[in-house]
């Protein structure tokens, strides 16, 4: 069978495409729209279930109101996530058909499994949200548990594919096509994907937690500070505040895996031209093709971070030809944005946890709540910057050191038209979702309290 496939493989050739950059931007735009919704898919069901569980344990109606109101938002965001996720799977075929034709047999399994997670999530989120007051309380709580599990496994399967693109294995290459594929070991025997998954899992709680907390902090600054709002803020902010400092540890793990498996990406993160022993790290600055200028140099920091040894040798960009290097300044900027915002969020989280655990109350400074309002959108920026770091850092490869993005792109015309259309549609969608959430927030609390 493989022999037959090999015979027809040569037919699927890479195409001339004038709009490769636009195709990449279109894909990046779609990912940037979808990924914040994934965070809600990971973290929100667990928070809603926590509230309902607390209600069942204590009989405190505030928790029930909270779970009911949040579950409506959860369903709306899930519906939007369904369609933005559908666009992504369409785009894989529309924009990168040669990638799918050559390697779909290796990584496709991850998406097949994800499809089932998606099914379970869709089925039980409907039962949960439409089942309020219609199912017995304990059964209703139980119906939410598959949503939590499927939200986690869904992202796990998708990230297993991304881990494979960054660290490919489990097949033999012939004429640019994958033959003799072993999908299970390619996806799940891949040492590279676990840090990506755990990093994203924590990011889910950081983004969802800070975004939800930001809305209540905004309300606090406007004087809306009843028991309902304080409870909501405590739950969302606690989740984010705990995940943010722990993310630093996970980030360290990620950096070391990148250093070991993708040295070119690491060199691009820093803008390290020549291979260096005891490599420094530059804050800010600009990479001019050889060195980083105008930055603040911290000696030996890169070696220390990447290999836990201040004298370790770090491979530079010069180790690979120019056409095999990612765009260094985009990469540096994205990485430093992620790390910078991540550090601020971790500090904010630590302040909150100190006050909450030590003094058993919420912080009282208005400045704290102003910071939380900012932390919401900033966490989304850090999330997207993080994905830019890993995805742009993989360039010019779609399958790291195996297939170039330019070999994967479609030969079809009209990418700019599609790109423009998609921008307009996403703007409309964002407007619609914003309007919807505003409307939800204006429903009086009493409407949900009585069922």
């Amino acid at each position, binding site marked *: *069978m493989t022999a037959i496939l090999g015979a027809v493989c040569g037919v699927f050739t890479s195409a001339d495409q004038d709009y490769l950059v636009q195709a990449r931007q279109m894909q990046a735009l779609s990912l940037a729209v979808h990924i914040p919704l994934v965070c809600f898919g990971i973290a929100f069901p667990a928070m809603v279930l926590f509230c309902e569980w607390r209600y069942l344990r204590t009989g405190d109606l505030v928790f029930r109101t909270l779970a009911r109101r949040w579950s409506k938002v959860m369903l709306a965001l899930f*519906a*939007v996530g369904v369609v933005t996720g559908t*666009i992504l799977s369409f785009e894989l075929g529309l924009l990168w058909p040669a990638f799918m*034709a050559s390697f779909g047999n290796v990584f496709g399994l991850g998406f097949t499994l994800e499809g089932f997670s998606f099914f379970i999530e869709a089925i039980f989120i409907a039962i949960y949200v439409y089942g309020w007051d219609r199912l017995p309380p304990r059964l209703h709580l139980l119906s939410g548990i598959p949503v939590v599990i499927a939200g986690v496994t869904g992202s796990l399967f998708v990230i297993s594919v991304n881990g494979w693109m960054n660290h490919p294995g489990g097949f033999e290459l012939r004429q640019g096509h994958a*033959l003799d594929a072993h999908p299970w070991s390619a996806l799940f025997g891949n040492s590279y994907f676990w840090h990506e998954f755990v990093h994203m899992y924590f990011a889910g709680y950081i983004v969802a937690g800070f975004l939800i907390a930001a809305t209540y902090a905004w309300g606090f600054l406007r004087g809306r500070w009843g028991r309902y709002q304080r409870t909501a803020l405590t739950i969302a902010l606690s989740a984010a505040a705990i995940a943010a400092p*722990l993310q630093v540890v996970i980030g360290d793990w990620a950096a070391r895996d990148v250093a070991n498996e993708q040295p070119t990406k690491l060199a691009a993160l820093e803008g390290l031209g020549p291979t260096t022993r005891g490599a420094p790290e530059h804050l800010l600055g600009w990479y001019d093709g050889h060195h980083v200028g105008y930055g603040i140099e911290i000696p030996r920091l890169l070696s220390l971070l990447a290999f836990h040894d201040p004298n370790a040798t770090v491979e530079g960009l010069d180790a690979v030809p120019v056409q095999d290097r990612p765009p260094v300044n985009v990469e540096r900027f994205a990485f430093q944005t992620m790390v910078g915002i991540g550090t601020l969020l971790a500090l904010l989280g630590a302040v909150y946890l100190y006050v909450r*655990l030590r003094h058993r109350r919420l912080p*009282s400074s208005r400045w704290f709540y102003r910071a939380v309002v900012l932390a919401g959108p900033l966490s989304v920026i850090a999330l997207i910057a993080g994905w830019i770091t890993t995805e742009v850092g993989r360039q010019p490869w779609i399958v790291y050191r195996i297939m170039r993005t330019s070999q994967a792109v479609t030969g079809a015309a009209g990418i700019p038209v599609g790109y423009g259309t998609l921008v307009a549609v996403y703007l409309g969608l964002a407007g619609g979702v914003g309007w919807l959430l505003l409307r939800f927030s204006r429903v009086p609390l009493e409407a949900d309290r009585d069922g």
Partner: protein
Amino acid sequence: MAEIPMVFILAGLAAYTLLASADFGAGLWTLVAGPGRAGRAPTREHARHAMGPVWEANHVWLIFVLVVCWTAYPLAFGSITSTLAVPLFIAAVGIILRGASYALRGQLEGVHGRHPIENLFALSSILTPFTLGTVVGGIASGRVPIGNATGDLITSWLNPTSVLIGALAVTIGGYLAAVYLAADAHRLGTRTLELDFRARALTTGICAGALALAGLLVVRYDAPSLFNGLTSDGGAAMIGFSAAAGLTTLFLVRRHHYGPARVSAALAVAAVIAGWALAQRPRVLPGLTIDQAAAGRSTLLAVIIAVAGGAIVLVPSLILLFHLVLRGRLDPAAAPDATVPTPPSITRKGRTRLLAAFAGTTLLIGAGVTVFADPGWARALGVICLFACALSTFSLATAQPDQKTSPSSGISSRR
């Protein structure tokens, strides 16, 4: 073995046609709600609400079809998506609009300027099934050659067969939606709505039948090899079966037997898809048989295992969902269950201390092991410790959520 994933794809396609096209059909009926006995507003309302709990699950079938196709038949998938990029993109945009209208449904009541928005959403309900139908037509009439966008970007989907199948897809959607909505109205006891949708079901059912017959004529001249397949052996048997099931459905709808009508409608649609598959067999694309298109043995085996394993979880879940929905257990008017909250639990100080100590210990071990240990198992242990730390800290931070001190008082005094 090369054919088993294709059976999954066809089954997924049948499920998508039966479930999601009915959803698109409901969107169609919100666009052309009048004239009817029940009036425009209640008709729109009914069409909008009926699909509520099942919308997302119905939609996932399309994802299922795509992912199995690109895993098991990657070469065919790449050829199809690159040549048929235009209709697929339009369908994708239509799906965004349909999803948006689902998320916003019911919220647009009484909002100024809602009619153009609602019509845009409803229009997407026509556009998506039509373009997806043209994709099927492009494949069935052999207009997708192997290769990266090697077919014609326009005539591959704007051709007689494609347009016909597109129109048929829209009509079948309208028909199925009308049958389901009539059944829902019957269950909810709204007689006028039931009669309206019954009339619509009969009209669109006859239209669908007429289109299908006309389609055979078009295919005869436009895609002779497909026509030969459809009129001989298995293909002909399936088409005949479909016609019989379609007529049975019309009869059952006329007699108000909506439950059996759903079943026979499902059989009619599934038979058309099976007939298409048999007519084209073993050719997937021109010059590409199913054996040539299929991925290697271990990939196919992995797909089969994944789908079989997934089905063990999926099938009972789907049965549960449809059981709840069709029995009206998730209807807005369903009787509420009495809630019996248990009395408040008592928190003990000793337990708080213990939890705090646990959180601190797991933090130290987790961070230390994750940062400094290299073997995979040690890292796994470190991450587990970090999760344990996160959970215990969360439990501490959310215990007694701030009952006695209200920070706003502290602030107002400071200001």
